[in-house]
């Protein structure tokens, strides 16, 4: 048994060995964005700069909670998150980004305090089953989904950050009362709840439901898995309907970052033309580029369309608004 103890201690120490190489040529990123989707970006950065990137992948909200628990001792240099809410939750621990980086994107798509910046855009859509419905059958506003004819046919992910951001947008834009009424009305229509966006789109494809409230790019992910002929399509809602909200994935540099130069360089790198083009040319999930002059993938709204779309709301206030949104979702029976 003594041998085992020694072995155990040796292996445990071996696990601690990583600290020595904390030289200037490494960068630690906490990524709430899936490895499948963003790994090529990290590889390109390593190739171009010679800086080694260590990435910790996990859920955005869990990483935000981790950064909060770590406090000033966080090993992270960059937080690359799925949604403005997670970034907003740790904004006190983020440093202000350089003007040159911030100016790459429209003010709508970054923190008003300059602590994080959007790196790609995503529009809320109604995804629908093309065997059951034509685009004309799908309502032009989410407010119409309370019509009894949609009973049992709508699906949504109530615990998902993007869905909650959409509800926040509705609250800020249409007011508390109207949002509560809508949530109650929709609830009366017995919507189906899913854990995330992907299963919603899969359920639409399988015919389990006819319409789903999701982000636009999940369509492409699900087609990748089920095949191009899967009977699903996106409907982008017109005008300033809350259901046309445009949100972002984004990144920020930690104030406690050990490699803050490399970190700023990385965020700037994400906004360079070449990396923005990545979303339209190579990426599986077809997000929208946020930098002027880069055209999105066919069928995905352009930057001008994005900037003019959806309710007029401040994304950087979403973190602070989340608690009220959660309370409302809780009271109306969407979450517990």
């Amino acid at each position, binding site marked *: 048994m003594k041998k085992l103890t020694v072995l155990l201690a040796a*292996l445990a120490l071996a696990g601690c060995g990583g600290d020595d190489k904390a030289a200037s040529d490494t960068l630690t990123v906490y990524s709430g964005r899936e490895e499948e989707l963003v790994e090529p970006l990290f590889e390109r950065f390593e190739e171009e700069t010679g800086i080694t990137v260590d990435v910790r992948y996990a859920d955005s909200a869990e990483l935000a909670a981790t950064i909060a628990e770590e406090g000033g001792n966080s090993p992270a240099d960059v937080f690359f998150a799925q949604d403005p809410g997670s970034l907003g939750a740790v904004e006190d621990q983020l440093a202000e980004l350089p003007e040159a980086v911030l100016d790459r994107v429209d003010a709508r798509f970054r923190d008003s305090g300059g602590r994080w910046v959007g790196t790609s855009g995503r529009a809320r859509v109604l995804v629908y089953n093309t065997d059951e419905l034509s685009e004309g059958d799908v309502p032009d506003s989410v407010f119409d989904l309370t019509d009894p004819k949609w009973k049992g046919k709508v699906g949504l992910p109530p615990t998902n950050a993007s869905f909650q951001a959409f509800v926040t947008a509705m609250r800020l834009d249409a007011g508390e009362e109207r949002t509560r009424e809508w949530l109650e009305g929709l609830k009366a229509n017995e919507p189906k709840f899913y854990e995330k966006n992907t299963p919603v789109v899969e359920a639409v494809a399988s015919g389990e439901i006819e319409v789903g409230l999701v982000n636009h790019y999940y369509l492409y992910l699900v087609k990748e898995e089920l095949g191009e002929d899967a009977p699903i399509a996106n409907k982008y809602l017109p005008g300033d309907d809350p259901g046309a909200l445009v949100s972002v994935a984004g990144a920020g540099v930690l104030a406690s970052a050990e490699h803050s130069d490399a970190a700023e360089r990385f965020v700037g790198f994400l906004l360079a033309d070449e990396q923005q083009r990545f979303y339209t040319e190579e990426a599986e999930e077809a997000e929208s580029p946020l930098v002027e002059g880069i055209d999105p993938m066919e069928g995905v709204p352009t930057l001008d369309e994005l900037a003019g779309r959806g309710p007029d709301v401040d994304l950087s206030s979403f973190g602070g608004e*989340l608690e009220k949104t959660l309370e409302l979702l809780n009271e109306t029976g969407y979450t517990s």
Partner: protein
Amino acid sequence: MSLGRAGRGRAPLSLLLPACVTVALLLLPLAYLVVRASSGGGRGWRVLTRSNTLDLLWSTGLLVVGVTLASMTIGVSVAWLTTRTDIPGRRLWAVGAALPLVIPSYVAAFCLLGAFGPRGLLQQLLGVERLPEIYGYWGALAALTLSTYPYVLLLVSAALRDLDPALEEAGRGLGRSPFEVFRRVTLPALRPSIGAGALLVALYTLSDFGVVSLMRYDALTRAIYLQYKSLFDRTPAAVLALVLVALTALVLWLESRWRRRVSRSGPGTARRPRPHRLGRWRWPALVYCGGVVGAFLAVPAAVLVYWLARGLDRAEVPWREVANSMSASALAAVAAALAAIPIALLATRFPTRLTRLLERSSFAGNALPGIVIALSLVFFAANYASPLYQTLALLVFAYVVRFLPQALAGVESALSSVGPRVEEAARALGRGPVSAAFTVTVPLIRSGIFAGAALVFLSAMKELPATLLLRPIGFETLATEIWKTTSVGAYSRAALPALLLIAVSAPFVYFLSSRHEPTEVEHG
């Protein structure tokens, strides 16, 4: 000194010290929760008075009771059939029925949904429009039972093999029916092992998040995860987690009451009993075992193979992940077994209020969801032990915090079947209490220690939430590989790591289910 229950001297310091240190470390998450819950002032406690907190308690309780009863029924019945009867293919059923233990519960849920969910495989096969709804209570019950009943099966099978068949044979000799012998003789003797198994099942169910979220069943863990997403305020999550700790205490209390009515029959002789002839019950018994193995092993395996076939062209064997999973889990198994021995020895050989308290306290981390353990260790390690933060050592420690009770179950059930008499003999010959324990008892319960370690190994292989946050950067395991692919909906690529996880874990289940198998009649 008849059964050596008490009055055998004071607990020696050489056992107390390591046990106290271990338990103090295991209680770190609890300390964290108390700090978090109290830091938010009154706001966090508002969660408690919300009307749906009661609903959550009720639905969580309902699930725990359901899964525990189902697991006890399946576990005990299959264990009896495969150790005490002449059912054809006895060994095959014993191993096959234990194998679902290696299927992570979230994979089980995915597979059940893939098979029985809307437009799943079954629906395609039958060509029908709709199947009964699988989401909700029944789906969660099925997936959780699948991955937990093997705990009961394994512990009860081992106990049955250790049980002196002379008792049952005497019962039969007195003209009792097999059923009556089972109820009056076998079942009472199995109490400790059924209790230990049921405890693991109940605590696992309390802590599980993957299944309840995939099956959309509102349990406490799901609410805790949702609270963590409200980010700014970790207080409500901590308060809900403390509610979970209170439920754990309740479960532990129930189990110890159940265990109190134990009749220990002494070490017994390890020999194969004369099997019951099933006679015309043979076919129903076969159908039953086939149903259990079919539903809980064949269905998930078939779904995984189907997914694998669909994405075979893109499949790449993740060798590095296999190695990482196995090394981290093996370390956790060794560490947990070593840590469990002093605690188990104290609780069974020196039963005082203190030693029992130590033993019960080591369960604190077991019913907490992985995210709570992970964040508490993030907090302590990042701020007070930063050289350890995000190292393999911390990850292994997190596994020990979560799974130590499984090692404890193995060691304790072995200890309770060895009985203190040999140890007392050693002491009568002049050995000190610790020396007697280590030279006489520990070698005797070696197989129990290995069994406990194997259980920890299997659990660590499947662990996800703590692994994600605490692993060294770039340390990929099979579980994180499955998470990575399923989170983008790429089930075809999740199938290979899932099947590999099952394949490398399977030999351990084989070991667990075949240990104590007496090869021939011998006299003890």
